[in-house]
């Protein structure tokens, strides 16, 4: 391999970009460090004075002796209770997660319960989230971002922080998923406990949340549940410091300005030199308006305890069984959806005898719920799940129902960063209620803001009949090429096909794969026929006209129509010509050149064969009477 100098450097740069961490779990790495056991090996241990270690050791010894005495006196009712140390903080560890994603539904209503945070996707994690930087970016250097924030630095010039939460401004994305999240909650004490679950979907429906203890389902109950979504944005922090002292650092001069925050908006802060008193006779403090864009940073005394860095579920949990509990959390969340995509390669083309197709079906899961589901068991529900509009749901002015537009977003640069991951794992399909349930054979990680593609089916040698559809109401001059595919076992299919998009390709004379067209299919059970529209035929020209009109009585008319189909191909073709009749009158076909079938009360189908380089004329006379 000949590697030029530049090429090697480029490849190394590319490898460097590729190696940049993407996993959301990096955000919590420092938290995990801090929550590690206070073992002797932990840094900083040696810096403690020796007398402190002795005091701690003595304390532990006393606690152990006291505990042993207490345990020996505690009456037991047959259960081997583990008595948790009351000072041990509650820890939550993820055990596993199952994600059941519902297919994009026609009757999808806006059911997201997510509060509006609006605005851009700016946001910064502990390590900085460069990918999500919006116009208003956290203006901190890494040192500030990484600092434990004892003084509560606020980056200036930022008005919103969404922490990876999908923006709900503008288009409302649809979709729904059921999340079943199993976690180990450690060190619960008997009685009430405050338990917090982070890493839940930002689009969670709080009313659907259910938490159960698998360790003691009867003795453990949720007393209170809160979904905390007031995230630690700069403005949220400032709001809590109105009437309190803040310090600002000017961008250019580095000068420190201190004062009591009177009010603030996106552009400015109003500071006073003393706290404003409620006493009307008290001297009024001097106030000064400071333009926020001129500030480098704003410092507040401390981080309020009621601000969260990410959406968090908080429970007051009452249990009779202290110790560790295996718990299951389930909830519905929005903005996770899947759809099927079928790639159809027309392998052998034969207009007359029928085409041979190779069909590959893919499942595309689009997760924008705000949570990453690590090594999740994945289930997909195919079918139209009924939903009702939630009164809190965000109503957008777009009123868009088109899923096409929804999916087309994936290709719009800058709308969001879609990371395409292609994996192939097997789906098994089962009937579930009135739907089809597809279960993935192996766990898979579904990251936030990612489209994951998984293999759904592969079928080769599928036979298709080709038909040319001439429907004057659709196109007055051209016929649509249709492929009719029997979804049967004999035809190497015979399985439920979820609704999705079908892309047709074929190999040209040079061996290149060419795009032929695209269509959609609805949920299709087995043993039904798929009717796929490919394109408009080039060599088939059609016309339709009314050639006779006669009034037989005041309520009785006669019409004659004529359809002509000219086949310029070198092979004969099968054609379906559609005749449309008046829907407001009784009709009767009195004369026709070809046999027809009545499709519905106002539509006739003429199925005929048109030989190569010939013209086919279909004429039919209809009497309308009312």
């Amino acid at each position, binding site marked *: 391999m000949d590697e030029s100098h530049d090429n090697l450097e480029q490849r190394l740069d*590319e490898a460097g970009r590729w*190696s940049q961490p*993407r996993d959301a779990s990096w955000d919590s790495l*420092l938290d995990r*460090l801090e929550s*590690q056991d206070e073992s002797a090996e932990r*840094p900083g241990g040696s810096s403690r004075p020796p007398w402190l270690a002795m005091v701690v050791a003595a304390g532990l010894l006393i606690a152990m002796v006291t505990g042993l005495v207490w345990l020996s006196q505690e009456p037991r009712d047959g259960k081997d209770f583990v008595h948790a140390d009351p000072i041990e903080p509650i820890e939550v560890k993820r055990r596993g997660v199952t994600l059941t994603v519902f297919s994009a539904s026609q009757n999808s209503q806006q059911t997201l319960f997510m509060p509006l945070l609006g605005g851009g996707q700016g946001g910064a994690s502990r390590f900085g989230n460069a990918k999500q930087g919006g116009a208003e970016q956290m203006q901190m250097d890494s040192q500030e971002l*990484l600092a434990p924030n004892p003084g509560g630095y606020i980056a200036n010039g930022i008005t919103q922080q969404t922490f990876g939460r999908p923006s709900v401004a503008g288009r409302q994305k649809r979709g729904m998923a059921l999340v079943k999240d199993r976690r180990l909650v450690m060190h619960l004490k008997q009685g009430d406990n405050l338990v917090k679950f982070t890493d839940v979907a930002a689009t969670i429906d709080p009313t659907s949340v259910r938490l159960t203890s698998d360790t003691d389902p009867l003795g453990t109950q949720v007393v209170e549940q809160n979904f905390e979504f007031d995230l630690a944005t700069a403005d949220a922090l400032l709001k809590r410091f109105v009437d309190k002292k803040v310090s600002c650092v000017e961008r250019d001069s580095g000068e420190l300005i201190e004062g009591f925050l009177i009010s603030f908006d996106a552009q400015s802060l109003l500071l006073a030199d003393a706290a404003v008193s409620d006493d009307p006779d008290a001297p009024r403090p001097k106030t000064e308006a400071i333009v926020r864009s001129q500030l480098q940073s704003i410092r507040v005394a401390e981080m309020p305890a009621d601000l969260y860095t990410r959406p968090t579920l908080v429970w007051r949990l009452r249990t009779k069984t202290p110790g560790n509990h295996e718990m299951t959390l389930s909830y519905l969340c929005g903005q996770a959806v899947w759809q099927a995509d079928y790639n159809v390669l027309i392998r052998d083309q034969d207009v007359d005898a029928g085409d041979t197709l190779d069909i590959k079906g893919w499942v595309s899961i689009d997760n924008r719920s705000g949570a990453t589901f690590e090594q999740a068991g994945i289930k997909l529900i195919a079918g139209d799940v009924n939903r009702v509009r939630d009164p809190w749901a965000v109503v957008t002015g777009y009123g868009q129902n088109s899923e096409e537009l929804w999916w087309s977003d994936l290709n719009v640069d800058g709308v969001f960063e879609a990371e395409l991951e*292609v994996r192939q794992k097997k789906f098994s399909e089962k009937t579930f209620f009135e739907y089809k349930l597809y279960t993935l054979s192996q766990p898979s990680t579904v990251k936030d803001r990612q489209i994951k593609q998984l293999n759904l089916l592969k079928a080769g040698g599928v036979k298709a009949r080709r038909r040319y559809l001439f429907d004057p109401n659709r196109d007055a001059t051209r016929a649509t090429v249709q492929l009719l595919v029997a979804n049967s076992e004999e035809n190497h299919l015979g399985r439920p096909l979820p609704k999705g998009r079908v892309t047709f390709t074929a190999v040209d004379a040079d061996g290149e794969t060419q795009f032929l067209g695209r269509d959609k299919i609805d949920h299709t059970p087995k043993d039904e026929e798929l009717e796929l529209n490919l394109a408009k035929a080039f060599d088939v020209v059609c016309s339709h006209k009314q050639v006779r009109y006669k009034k037989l009585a005041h309520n009785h008319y006669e019409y004659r129509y004529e359809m002509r189909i000219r086949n310029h191909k070198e092979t004969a073709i099968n054609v379906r010509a559609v005749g449309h009749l008046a829907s407001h009158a009784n009709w009767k076909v009195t004369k026709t050149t070809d046999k027809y079938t009545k499709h519905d009360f106002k539509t006739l189908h003429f199925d005929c064969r048109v030989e190569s380089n010939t013209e086919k004329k279909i004429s039919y006379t209809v009497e309308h009477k009312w």
Partner: protein
Amino acid sequence: MQKTDAQLAREAAGGSTPSFGVLVERHRAPLVAVAAGVLRCRDEAEEVAQEALLRAWQKLRSLNDPARFGPWLRTIARNLALDRSRSPRPVPLPDDPPERSSSGDSDERIAELLAAVETLDEEFREVIYRKHFSQQSGRQIAEQLGIAEGTVRSRLSRAYARLRETIQRD
């Protein structure tokens, strides 16, 4: 001037999480690269990189020469990745299509390049990782390693030459 790894490592050994945070940010991409070169799997490499950092945090006091924090950290990651590669892992299905990266190279090709970087001598690896993975400038590398900028350039040049040889040989 940025704090050197040695300064930060000393502070972190004294219990400073923010200092360790800076080291994390500086070294996490090289760690992912080292692990990916062994494991040939990006997702697993990230897990190993995090595990290596957690281990390093626990064992930081055992590091005799804080100036060698980077090589020491990468050794932890390499050993963890080797351990993991020896343990039973899920076998990918035979017809798995290659994962597409946002850039041109496939994941497999990048992993091959990373494995090639790992065959270089430590002094060459160090400058490659700092320049291409930690995105440090020549001056920053010189400051961090306590060497002249010209030395950084010559080391990089020799590192590229060695790397080209390795790639061509393979």
